[in-house]
């Protein structure tokens, strides 16, 4: 977290800010992933998978809504789930950089989902016993969906890794190129100083995540990149890649053209 790149970002949080920050991490991750997966609609490799990927997209956006609704309650005033999704700029978004990486080909999308779904599975499993009742409730509902997603993306990694020579090569490339965005998921963060232990510390999931990822990659006959490789950072502090600008431009354009409108 040191270094010039993140100079000037917020490091001190009140407990109220810390709580919101935690919700924003989860909500923005869910929205970003749901938004990206939704653009596969009508472009999947086979009709059955078009339907499957839309299902997961619906789950992510649905989860994002629940979390934004909680945030809107915390923020009060005129804030709604939609003002949070549509009227924040890139600086306000707290999603991990992994989630804003482009869809690429089917293997790229699968690799991105695999890395985050596996993380989400362990995270939401533990969050079911969070002291924040709203969050525990969301986790309880979401875990069933996430378990399915994690299985779906892991199976695809295996299928592509152990498929043809071409798919094996492509899947390895996808994992390799997305790898540097995975470390950020497990970063420590100053907000945790203000949150009790039932708010799962992301770094505590790293071991079990690495183990599971390694297992699947092995079954897929692929090579796991070293966890010691250089990892990118910034998303959790609102310092994003250029990709986010395009995602937001597309997602927010209509809502911002008619700021007074209800839909």
């Amino acid at each position, binding site marked *: 977290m040191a270094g010039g790149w993140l100079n000037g970002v917020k490091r001190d949080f009140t407990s109220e800010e810390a709580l919101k920050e935690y919700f924003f991490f989860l909500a923005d991750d869910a929205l970003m992933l749901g938004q990206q997966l939704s653009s596969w609609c009508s472009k999947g490799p*086979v*009709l*059955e*998978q078009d*339907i*499957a990927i839309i*299902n997961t997209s619906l789950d992510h956006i649905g989860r994002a809504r629940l979390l934004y609704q909680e945030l809107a309650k915390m923020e009060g005033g005129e804030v709604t789930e939609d003002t949070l999704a549509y009227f924040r700029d890139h600086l306000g978004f707290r999603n991990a950089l992994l989630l804003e990486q482009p869809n690429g080909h089917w293997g790229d999308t699968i690799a991105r989902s695999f890395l985050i779904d596996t993380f989400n599975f362990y995270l939401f499993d533990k969050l079911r016993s969070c002291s924040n009742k709203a969050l525990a409730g969301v986790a309880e509902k979401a875990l069933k969906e996430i378990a399915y997603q994690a299985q*779906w993306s892991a*199976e695809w990694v295996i*299928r592509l890794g152990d498929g043809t020579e071409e798919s094996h090569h492509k899947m390895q490339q996808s994992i390799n190129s997305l790898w540097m965005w995975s470390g950020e998921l497990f970063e420590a963060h100053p907000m945790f100083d203000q949150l009790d232990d039932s708010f799962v510390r992301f770094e505590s999931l790293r071991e079990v995540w690495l183990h599971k990822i390694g297992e699947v990659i092995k079954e897929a006959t692929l090579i796991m990149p070293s966890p010691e490789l250089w990892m990118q950072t910034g998303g959790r502090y609102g310092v994003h890649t250029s990709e986010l600008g395009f995602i937001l431009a597309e997602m927010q354009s209509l809502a911002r053209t008619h700021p007074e409108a209800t839909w």
Partner: protein
Amino acid sequence: MSTTNWKLWEVFLRSKNGLSHKHVGSLHAPDSNMAIKNARDVYTRRSEGISIWVVPSESITASSPDEKDALFTPSDDKVYRHPTFYDIPDDVQHM
């Protein structure tokens, strides 16, 4: 243009315990594992089922319609198999 040579599978759903599986349609998948997953995504979008069977279409042997008479007609005259065959007074309820 390459083609999808994924097998065709027939899908059967049990809508709730106590009912038998019912044929709902078919789909394509390379293996049974994905066939089950696809069936879940395609045929249970509105919670239509709690249990799924998938069967490769090629594994189903169907009776030929030409044998229909031989197979099904014999039971047409076994009216005693149907409850309405028996005269029960209306006063006797719940039967």
